């Protein structure tokens, strides 16, 4: 497959406007401004593009649901607050495809009738935001921000840091200068979002796909996918692989191909026990499902989630309990503290996991974990806690023997023979 998003990843200066334009950059925007907003939305809907932040909601439909006649002013936010462990694709875009993001924002702004848009970049990516800023200055100087209805004001907001800012209503609070707790829904942000005005929030990768879709058409985009997937996708692999990294592949590439071909398989002497396929808030995908095409529907069918497409590998030298301690510690620390199940429940889960890992756990702790998992997720205010529990609950099931061994032995079996 041709490199679409990643074509300038290894260029010396991905913010170079001429370089981007030489590869067809801003052709999508040129076409978009000849189209009506309704036509653009049709095109995006036809392309089958789905939200790349993890939820997979159809982008065109999201735009349509906001309504073409939503009251003005309307706002657009690009979510580049990638903070979930194992998710590194948006970072690659930020450093390697800044013009894709800018062009995508211009297309979306035109389609949504937006005059003010924000690219929300996590503070840890401040260096990447500088690359984006450079690209933005060049695009602005070239007059590219002038849309038919006037110049788009496109701001880069650098976050003060917290995972919850990636939630699509919390991100608005963060931009407004408030504590980034998620907001009560209804009202949905498409009706009352930023400063209570209609707002659309899209993931950076979703935005970055728009130039291609507009330049080459929905059919071209659909055809990029394989095995029932549409378009291309930035997958990534981390953990004990030979070649961890970010790979742009057809959406629908099987897990096996991603893991063993593109990431080069595991390091010497290791055996893969499972992966979290879409960042650390997705359930384990086990080896028997590695032939699954990695697109939203196929992954869901085997009980996991595509999420961000960021694979985290669990091999046979890594204790699964310790693995879950690490993922849960992240979520317990990043809970915003707003709702009870997440704020009180995740530290409780972490504490139970730590006890079991330390060898001081009891059988009923495993049961408590299962029960807690069932209680926290459905009653939480936002998706943070349910995501946190997906690896835990699937891990409890998949690696039950490991949990039991910790309790039986009174220590972590993976620590044996290590000092």
């Amino acid at each position, binding site marked *: 497959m041709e490199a679409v998003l990643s074509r300038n990843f290894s260029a010396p200066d991905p913010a170079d406007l001429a370089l981007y334009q030489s590869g067809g950059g801003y052709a999508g925007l040129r076409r978009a401004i000849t189209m009506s907003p309704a036509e653009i939305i049709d095109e995006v809907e036809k392309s089958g593009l789905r939200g790349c932040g993890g939820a997979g909601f159809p982008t065109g439909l999201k735009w349509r649901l906001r309504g073409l006649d939503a009251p003005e002013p309307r706002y657009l936010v690009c979510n580049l607050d990638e903070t979930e462990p194992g998710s590194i694709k948006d970072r690659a875009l930020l450093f390697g495809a800044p013009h894709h993001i800018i062009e995508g924002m211009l297309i979306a702004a035109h389609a949504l009738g937006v005059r003010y848009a924000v690219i929300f970049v996590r503070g840890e990516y401040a260096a990447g935001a500088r690359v984006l800023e450079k690209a933005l200055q060049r695009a602005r100087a070239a007059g590219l921000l002038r849309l038919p209805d006037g110049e788009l004001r496109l701001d880069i907001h650098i976050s003060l840091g917290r995972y919850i800012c990636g939630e699509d209503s919390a991100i608005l609070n963060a931009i407004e200068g408030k*504590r980034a707790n998620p907001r009560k829904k209804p009202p949905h942000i498409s009706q009352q979002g930023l400063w209570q005005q209609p707002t659309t929030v899209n993931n950076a990768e979703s935005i970055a796909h728009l130039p291609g879709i507009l330049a080459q058409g929905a059919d071209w985009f659909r055809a990029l996918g394989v095995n029932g997937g549409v378009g291309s996708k930035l997958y990534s692999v981390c953990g004990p692989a030979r070649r961890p990294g970010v790979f742009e592949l057809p959406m629908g590439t099987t897990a096996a191909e991603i893991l063993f071909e593109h990431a080069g398989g595991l390091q010497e002497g290791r055996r893969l026990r499972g992966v979290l396929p879409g960042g650390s808030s997705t359930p384990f995908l086990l080896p028997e499902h590695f032939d699954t095409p990695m697109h939203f529907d196929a992954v869901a069918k085997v009980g996991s989630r595509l999420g961000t497409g960021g694979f985290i590998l669990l091999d046979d030298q890594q204790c699964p309990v310790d693995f879950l301690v690490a993922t849960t510690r992240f979520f317990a620390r990043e809970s915003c503290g707003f709702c009870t*199940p997440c*704020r*009180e429940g995740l530290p*409780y889960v972490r504490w139970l996991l730590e006890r079991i890992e330390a060898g001081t756990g009891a059988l009923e702790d495993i049961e408590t974990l299962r029960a807690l998992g069932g209680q926290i997720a459905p009653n939480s*205010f936002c998706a943070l806690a349910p995501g946190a529990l997906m690896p835990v609950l699937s891990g409890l099931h998949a690696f039950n023997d490991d949990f039991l061994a910790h309790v039986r032995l009174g220590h972590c079996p993976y620590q044996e023979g290590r000092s």
Partner: protein
Amino acid sequence: MKHVFYLDGQAVPFTPGQNVLEAALAAGLDRQIPYFCFHPALGSLGACRQCAVKMYPHDSKHPPRVTMACLLPASDHLQLGTLEADVHAEHQEIIELLMTNHPLDCPVCDEGGQCHLQDMTVQTGHSQRHYSGPKRTYRNQDLGPLVYQEMNRCITCYRCVRFYQDAAQGEDFGAFGSRDRVTFGRIEDGPLESPFSGNLVEVCPTGVFTDKVFRHDYVRVWDLQQAPSVCPHCAVGCNTTPGARLGSLRRIRNRLRPEMNGHFICDRGRYGFRYVTAPSRPLQARLQGETSRQEVVLRQIAARLQEGRSGFLGSPREDLRSNLALFALADCLHAPFAAVTSSWAEALAQQCLALPQAPSLQEVAAADRVVVIGDLGGIAPMAEFAVRQAVRGGASLTVMASAYTSLARQGEYRPLRPSALPERVADLHNDPCLQGSRRPVILATAETLGPAGLHALRKTLEKLPANARAGAFVNRPNLFGAAYFAADGHTARLQQALRQREISHLLCLGADPFGEDWGAGVWRTLMPGLDGIAVLDMVDSETARNAEALLPVAAFPERDGLFVNYEGRIQAFATVYRREAQILHPAVHHSGFSEAAGGQMHPLGPPPPWFWLSRLAEMLDLHSAWQERFHFYQHFLCPQPPDPEGPGVLLPDTIRARFDIAEVPAAHPLGPEQWELDIFRWYGGETLADVADDLQSLAPPRGLRVGSEIRAAAATLSGPCGSLHLPVIPCDHMASGVIAIDQDGFAELGLYPGDPVSVEWEVSS
């Protein structure tokens, strides 16, 4: 059409726009759905996740699901359940999670027995905690003398911060931190600055914020004697529930009154009650400043009255019935009577009463345009609170005042000197700030606006749309009651009689003519012509200290009575408790008790004023005449005394109309070259509350408040009755040409708000 949904098969009525929890609680179904973060006055948040119900969708396509009642809009024929096993399990699980870090300190927690968390825990049946790990702990903050913080008990419902920041618009209390370490408090230790801080105690569903004053003198809440009462500290008349034990008053809580104070009261109302327990409170009869037997003191007063040279002074600080009892006695003796201490105050009272029906606080909160004249928060904090609710609801606010008050920051501030107000108010109907309004409300502090301004306000209202409402406020609970008696010229006649030596004795009920009441400067000059003063009061006022005879009276929660608030709402308060006998001097106690056995004497602490007045009438052989008049006037003013549990009754317009004929007061606008006075009050300041130590530890310093452009360290003001030397306190954005001083300052100078004053500045060295 009546709207209903069904909760466990039971029909629950609702009004469109309500959520399921709100409607269920309003219908009294508080046992079915446990909740924490929802509060009727603060609304839904959806954070605690406690109020789960099972919702059965109308169609068969969607399965039933567990959802939060506080976020679920009520809709017709919605079927909901709480008895399902999964709902019950959810309720228990959330409580269990909340309890993982909550200390098991109920036996030593002040909240115990009135703890929402305790109630909900018992209600949901959670009894065993599985978590055995360490609990998080915090360092508590010292939040000042009124509110005690015990942070470890927090369940993070965000009620406190929503009250303090959103409802009360306070700027010194917030939510800090994140995840399982969110704390609520100030940036650093220090007293809470909001006049409404004490409500934290009531909105907190557990013992994080408890009443620090109650803590000095704590008893278990189930041991408290409680009864419906009315706050005596300003003209709003918030409904309260005092709690007492073993003959002493321990605390004041809000009593829900939707059309008035709603769920909240101000800190003056909550903490000012300590006048009741203040060491300075007169509890024993005094003669010539010495403790004396009640009978001796009564006989002395009776002897004075017999001479026929007495004048009578009632007070807007005393309740209606006591003022009536005094008036009736004056009437029997054909003695001059006045309800207020100066002609200015008399005109003020008349103009207040002559205003058309004032808006309730509930109506204020629903206004779309509000004009506030003067420092409302310093006079009647809960009226200011209602204005803040209107602003939150989108109302525009214009503040015309000499000082940049915290309320002024929420709207358009127009710095104006008091003497300029009558003219401005007369033109309000042309002012853009009220144009296009559908529910305009104008609220004024009566003293700053003055009689002329109040009159102008009444005339302006006639030119505004019929739905425009106005209210005037003082920090007295019964100015409107006292205004009944404030007939034209009574005060002047009384003072004239004194000057001409027609009278040489004064019987004062709750009045302090020689201390801080309006016109005190003049009264002080009249003091030498008096043979004696008799005082009936519950505080040791300047007048009481100079009295020949003093009879202590019961504090308001120690008796029943009636106040007429700024709306003309007659409200009854009930006897909460009786002060215990042991506080009486043993000798007095002995004689008092034996006489009480004969039904003559109150055995328990100071009696209500009418008891003393009844005794005096008896000694003067006027008892039946006195009683007859007393009952006649009471029947005339209030044929059916309202129930203390109820919302009170509003004065009929016919009685108000009597005051419409009051003389038109003259306005005296001053030129820019003249310095003039305005009154400075703070939210905790008021005669009774002034002796409540904890509250008064927060009082701002005394001084002359002037615009910060004035470079002076101090100044001497001179008036007809004296001069005043005080340090200058520079204030940003004050109206130019205005010096704000406290009520004592006015007394010393013998001046009124809006009066010109001569100033001698002292430049700092």
